[in-house]
């Protein structure tokens, strides 16, 4: 059984070449992702410099506790993902499935908390273009802050959702015994992707929640 799965695809000479190609492929993809988020980070930086007071005011309306909890949840999910990759490398199938499911639970938890945060923003009328009408006096460019808050976190959440789908696919493939210590490129690649999504959040958290000190 493992031999038939361990065949390289027809365009590759051997499994080693296939593994190297998959690994380089995912890193190149990460480079493109960095530039994708980079556009938003640039816009954020420009407006934060220009309208610092508005960004501080907007940041102070976020729930720091939920943000911090979410950061912790996501870091834990990176750990379980790393353990899952290790399990794949050492050929421990049950452990692999277990850690993948842990990672999915943590990822779903992150999205759940994010949903609670979004719901609060909805109740406080803080969603630009939808119901932006905060109470009281607020600096004029606070809406811009929330534009970037939602654009950046929503894009991040979209990456999380895609990641969860990929993890689910991995669980199914692992259940069918598709991975061996020699051949588990998808686990490695999706692992790298998952860590990347985490790192994006590690940048988003201070940029969005900790503007101007709390």
């Amino acid at each position: 059984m493992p031999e038939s799965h361990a065949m390289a695809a027809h365009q590759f000479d051997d499994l080693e070449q296939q593994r190297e190609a998959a690994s380089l492929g995912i890193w190149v993809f990460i480079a493109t992702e960095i530039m994708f988020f980079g556009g938003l980070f640039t816009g954020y930086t420009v407006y934060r410099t220009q309208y610092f007071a508005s960004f501080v005011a907007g940041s102070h309306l976020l729930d720091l506790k939920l943000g911090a909890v979410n950061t912790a949840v996501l870091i834990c999910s990176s750990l379980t993902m790393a353990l899952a990759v290790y399990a794949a490398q050492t050929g421990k199938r049950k452990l692999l499935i277990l850690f993948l499911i842990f990672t999915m639970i943590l990822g779903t938890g992150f999205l759940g908390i994010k949903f609670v945060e979004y719901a609060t923003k909805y109740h406080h009328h803080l969603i630009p273009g939808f119901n932006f009408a905060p109470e009281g006096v607020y600096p004029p460019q606070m809406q811009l802050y929330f534009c970037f808050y939602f654009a950046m976190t929503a894009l991040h959440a979209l990456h999380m959702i895609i990641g969860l789908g990929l993890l689910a696919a991995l669980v199914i493939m692992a259940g069918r015994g598709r991975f061996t210590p020699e051949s588990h490129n998808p686990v490695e690649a999706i692992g790298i992707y998952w860590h990347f999504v985490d790192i994006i959040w590690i940048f988003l958290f201070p940029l969005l929640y900790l503007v101007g000190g709390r």
Partner: protein
Amino acid sequence: MSTLSVEEPEQAESRVHYLNVHYGVKSWLLTTDHKRIALLYLASITLFFLVGGSAAVLIRMNLLTPTGLLVEPATYNKLFSIHGIVMVFFFLIPSIPAVLGNFLVPLMIGARDLAFPKLNLLSWYVYIVGGLFTLYAVIAGGVDTGWTFYAPYSSTYSNTHVMAAALGVFITGFSSILTGLNFIVTIHKMRAPGMTWFRLPLFIWAMYATSVIFILGTPVIGITILLIALERAAHLGIFNPALGGDPLLFQHLFWFYSHPAVYIMILPAMGVESELITCFSKKRIFGYSFVAMSSLAIALLGFLVWAHHMFVAGVSMYAGMVFSILSYLVAVPSSVKVFNWTATLYKGSISYEAPMLYGMGFIGLFSMGGVTGMFLASLGMDVHVHDTYFVIAHFHYIMVGGAVMAYLGGIHFWWPKISGRMYPEGWARFSALIIFLGFNLTFFPQYILGYLGMPRRYPVYPPEFQVLNVMSTAGASILGVGYLIPLIYLIWSMRYGPVASSNPWGAKGLEWQAPSPPPTDNFEETPVVTAQAYDYPSREVEVA
């Protein structure tokens, strides 16, 4: 001379190759063979070329008279917008990379396919979906923002189908990203034994540099266009000054991609040119490493010059100066290539088949476009000619005179490999000549129009500009005919052309070791490379 494996027609018909291995629409739409995907791209970009070209014809017709011969200004604005969007995003950017690149990258490095064949097919479907959005925008009533989508006009003021067109461009971007990713991995990991980096054909170097831009540039325009769509849907104020947004930020982000995008069009053309010049002068390229490295230099420096599109847009004086000098820096590697091509011809054995005629036309037109770029990089000069027909002429010389000439040259050069048939040589030379003449007659007068001060995107213009506009339109009609001739004879030759041998030009390069057309796995056995690129035989003579 390498020994040519000349096949009898019957043999070619009976041999199994990538074209006859399967039949039926499904075998094409579900193929993962890089050669078939290249043909899918060839058909689709030709379709988009016809759409963009028809818009160009109507634009030039309308400009025959100062008051606009055919259409209302609102329609004219939609015509030039669709011309720009379709030609840039759906023809020029995928032209050489997605057609010739897809076909040739594995063949030239001695691989059986690209590293990720399914991803390759996916990228074509993504391209088609993006194209359908854009075609929907055209059919539903058009879009009038120009291909540049400048805010706040596109985000707040235009009443046309900006959303569909923007999403089309956004989606198509992913097609470029997937293609670039595939090429980078393939070139890194799948070269045949002995194919070291400095034995790679220069076309591969060019594709590699192009892929870097695909990977690093395309996502930025993706997110920017997405922000425009968001701003349009929800009036967020990201680029709207009334809400504190900055329209110049849009221009910075837009040009951060769209200037390198010009190099996406011209770098592959330069790669094709290096193949043509060497083959038809039977010479090793002069200064291989300089030509190869200049591709990388262009790709990297190309990311540092975007604000030269904004000298009069309201950037600071010092920003203007920095971007001016950086723009001159990127001109150096381009001129290095031209000089090396010229030197390659020296003491060569030069023949004038149609691909070489296109290749020589390329050098001429690209040089004309390149030197006028130096006018535009000079700040005081740019202030006068910016946003006039001078700029239009400049970038058409690069993108049409340069990129399209090379694309056609490449299509003719590799046509025997692609189709297994020869194109009719006489017609091909004739059309190369017609295109060269028609092109110059169309766009040279536009340099003068620009210096006289005729702004771009004007359906109605002061009468003193009419004579030059009429000349330009006359040229355009010749150019249009010139482009139709190859379309007809190439289709004709697929069935009736003489059967081609595996290496009709006596060219070096692994792609010519495979049969014409190649089998699905390209090579019967993996080739081993022992020599440098363009290792044409030469005799040693004492240097005088």
